[in-house]
């Protein structure tokens, strides 16, 4: 396939710098993957499999190992499924509802602003619901994003019941004939049972009001987060049946490699990546580009 080849092509450069497939090679590969926050056990399994494969095929030259590495890495992400970029599930002539969830400060509200802008650019009629009634300034923050993206924001007072705000949002979206309603929620740590129940209740309200909704439940993950992201994905999925991930803050130095383990273990795909704080800084996720990014440092170091 085309995408896989381009990754292999880039991996070529990396392999060229290591002549022999020896312990040092594997050790550095392990460190590269761990420092990118790829799950520890995922890395250990991968390295074991690689070693076995190298032995089985009697590979000594690092040139020959490159295919195995690229195969295995892309395999971790996609499993047996087709390599494709995951699209948002948006209905053609009906209201689609997107629920956005995640722990505190990961970038939910910001990502909603960016996504609203993208959808609006595509000619969609978008409405936002200010479901974070808890954090200081959260409603005002979403309103600013609403202005920037030029879309309406449905809100109540701070402290009111989030499920009631979302209910209002659905009513307004219907009466305005909106194409997409995006619901903001307050950040919550996944081990807070009552807050997770509150979120499940918000989802139930959506399910009750619009059959087939929510069409997407997007979990926002901060690329800076380490192993805990796996626990976040598990628990939020249990509470709200997450359909996709938005991986934010990839414009920093963190790599967000934990999404490989998340896709591998929980089969939740990444749909978007956040690359900054501006309206335009949201892109579709490309697994091959992402996997290649994990090796960028290794390339720089060895080419110095």
């Amino acid at each position: 396939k085309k995408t896989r080849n381009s990754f292999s092509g880039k991996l070529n450069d990396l392999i060229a710098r290591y002549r022999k497939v020896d312990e040092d090679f594997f050790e550095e590969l392990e460190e590269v993957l761990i420092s990118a926050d790829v799950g520890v056990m995922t890395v250990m399994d991968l390295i074991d499999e690689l070693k076995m494969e190298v032995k089985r095929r009697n590979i000594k030259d690092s040139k020959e190992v490159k295919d195995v590495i690229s195969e295995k890495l892309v395999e971790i992400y996609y499993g047996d499924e087709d390599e494709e970029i995951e699209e948002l599930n948006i209905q053609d002539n009906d209201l689609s509802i997107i629920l956005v969830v995640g722990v505190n400060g990961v970038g939910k509200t910001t990502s909603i602003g960016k996504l609203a802008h993208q959808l609006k650019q595509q000619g969609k009629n978008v409405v936002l619901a200010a479901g974070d009634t808890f954090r200081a300034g959260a409603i005002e923050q979403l309103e600013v994003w609403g202005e920037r993206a030029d879309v309406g924001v449905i809100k109540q007072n701070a402290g009111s019941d989030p499920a009631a705000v979302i209910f209002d949002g659905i009513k307004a979206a219907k009466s305005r004939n909106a194409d997409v309603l995006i619901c903001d929620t307050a950040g919550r740590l996944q081990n807070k049972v009552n807050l997770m129940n509150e979120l499940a209740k918000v989802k139930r309200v959506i399910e009750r009001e619009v059959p087939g909704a929510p069409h997407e439940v997007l979990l926002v993950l901060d690329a800076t987060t380490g192993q805990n992201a796996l626990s976040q994905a598990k628990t939020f999925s249990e509470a709200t049946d997450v359909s996709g991930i938005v991986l934010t803050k990839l414009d920093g130095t963190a790599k967000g490699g934990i999404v490989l383990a998340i896709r591998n273990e929980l089969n939740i795909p990444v749909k978007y990546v956040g690359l900054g704080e501006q309206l335009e800084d949201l892109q579709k996720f490309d697994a091959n580009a992402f996997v290649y990014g994990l090796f960028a440092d290794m390339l720089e170091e060895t080419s110095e």
Partner: protein
Amino acid sequence: MAFEGLADRLQDTIKKITGKGKVSEQDVKEMTREVRLALLEADVNFKVVKDLVKRIKERAVGQEVMESLTPGQQVIKVVKEELTELMGGEQSKIAVADRPPTVIMMVGLQGAGKTTTTGKLANHLRKKHNRSPLLVACDVYRPAAINQLETLGEQLSMPVFSMGTEANPVDIAKKAMEQAKEEHNDYVIIDTAGRLHVDSDLMEELEQIKATVKPDEIFLVVDAMTGQDAVNVAESFNEQLDISGVVLTKLDGDTRGGAALSIKAVTDKPVKFAGMGEKLDQLEPFHPERMASRILGMGDVLSLIEKA
């Protein structure tokens, strides 16, 4: 959770050597391997883990563990000691300037918890030290950031200094100092915008604020869930600003929090406070020993000692 604590990880090895009477070097090797994995799963930076494991191995190969009747426990004890020592003693003191006001600057990545912690520190200073702080809104970038700080100020009934989003953060900080002197506020806490450590323009802005207000404390606010990147972030902020301490937030979650160890290892600056929730009274002094247990999976450590 899926993550095993160190004690769990050591179970198999311990079973194998129980009754053998003597621990071999191979046994120690296996145990240190498990130590390494446990630390990595707790998000301790891999370079920090490397150094730690080396020291632990040295002590383990010595008589301390090899000749112990309970080598598993002994390894855990050694590991815990090393971690606690690396994190240092408890240091939740806040500086007091010779001439008030004392100035505290809050810095860190986006979404780490700076604004919330600004409110928490103000609350702490009033409750525990009977101080009257002025909060300063220097984040002119994030939508509604000023509004957020003003809301916290209202909740605390404390003054918040702001000049809107058109003003320059350096000017805001300067004017705030003047007001604090006039109004006799004995502390000034400056909330700054979140920024990436590699964003040179915004890092430069922090240096300018620092030069203007000459802070007595610069707290780097770090999310406890941070992974391997914690060292890059902490190292950069420290190099550019010479921070005085760290506040670790969101420790009320279920993260192991290995970042605490990484940050201390690369900056040698103490973690002073722990954020334990979203509310303004949920700030605690940081306890290195408790943190060491947490990184290793505390429940496990206790249960293992009970089993033995």
